[in-house]
């Protein structure tokens, strides 16, 4: 029952060509998603055609690497790319409509640029209790 999911790793220089091939083959761009890992950054370009799921994984060594935009091929990619720029602080060049960091006006810039901290129990803050409902509700 588990669907088959193809995963292909690629490097930045082949990205646009690969994506263009998918476009020519009339694949639908399902999503572009980014993952920050301690040692690298992955960007997933997912495509679908007749329930065939193909994922290209672009691997970046760090967030300084320039990523070419695929929005000139898939117009809708611009939304994903702007999002990635705003959350991960990646340098994506050539987005057809570049929001220049105003896609999400977050309190914290590039919130996802930091990698998850080493696993440890989450310290919970002490809640401020306004109403004390002891036992039963009033």
């Amino acid at each position: 029952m588990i669907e088959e999911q193809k995963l292909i790793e690629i490097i930045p220089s082949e990205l646009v060509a690969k994506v263009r091939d998918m476009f020519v083959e009339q694949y639908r761009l399902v999503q572009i998603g980014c993952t920050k890992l301690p040692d690298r950054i992955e960007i997933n370009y997912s495509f679908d055609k007749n329930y065939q799921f193909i994922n290209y994984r672009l691997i970046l060594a760090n967030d300084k690497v320039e990523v070419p935009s695929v929005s000139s091929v898939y117009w809708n990619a611009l939304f994903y790319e702007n999002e990635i720029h705003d959350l991960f602080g990646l340098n994506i060049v050539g987005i057809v409509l570049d929001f220049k960091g105003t896609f999400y006006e977050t309190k914290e810039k590039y919130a996802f640029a930091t990698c998850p901290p080493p696993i440890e129990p989450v310290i919970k803050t002490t809640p401020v209790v306004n109403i004390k409902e002891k036992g039963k509700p009033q």
Partner: protein
Amino acid sequence: MVLKSLFSKPATYMYPLLTREPMVGSRGSIVNHVDQCSYCTLCQKKCPTDAIVVDREKKTWAIDSMRCITCNACVDVCPKSCLEMLTTYSSSKTAAELSR
């Protein structure tokens, strides 16, 4: 359809003149039957919104109704089964009532 509605009884349930019997299993608010409670703090740990404060020493258990998202996590986890999900929802408060 419109005319039919005009001449038939409206679908309105006349709350607050009438109150509907809450559905069985409806998630309304959490109550702790404190007498059975062992103050194990498991519910405090499991609460995703930190709404529950348990003090082992002082033997107090409190829930902030303005934080509880009625997810039922505490009820599920309670080893003593003293937590109960009531079907009645917790009431709203004015700012004055809250600060009191």
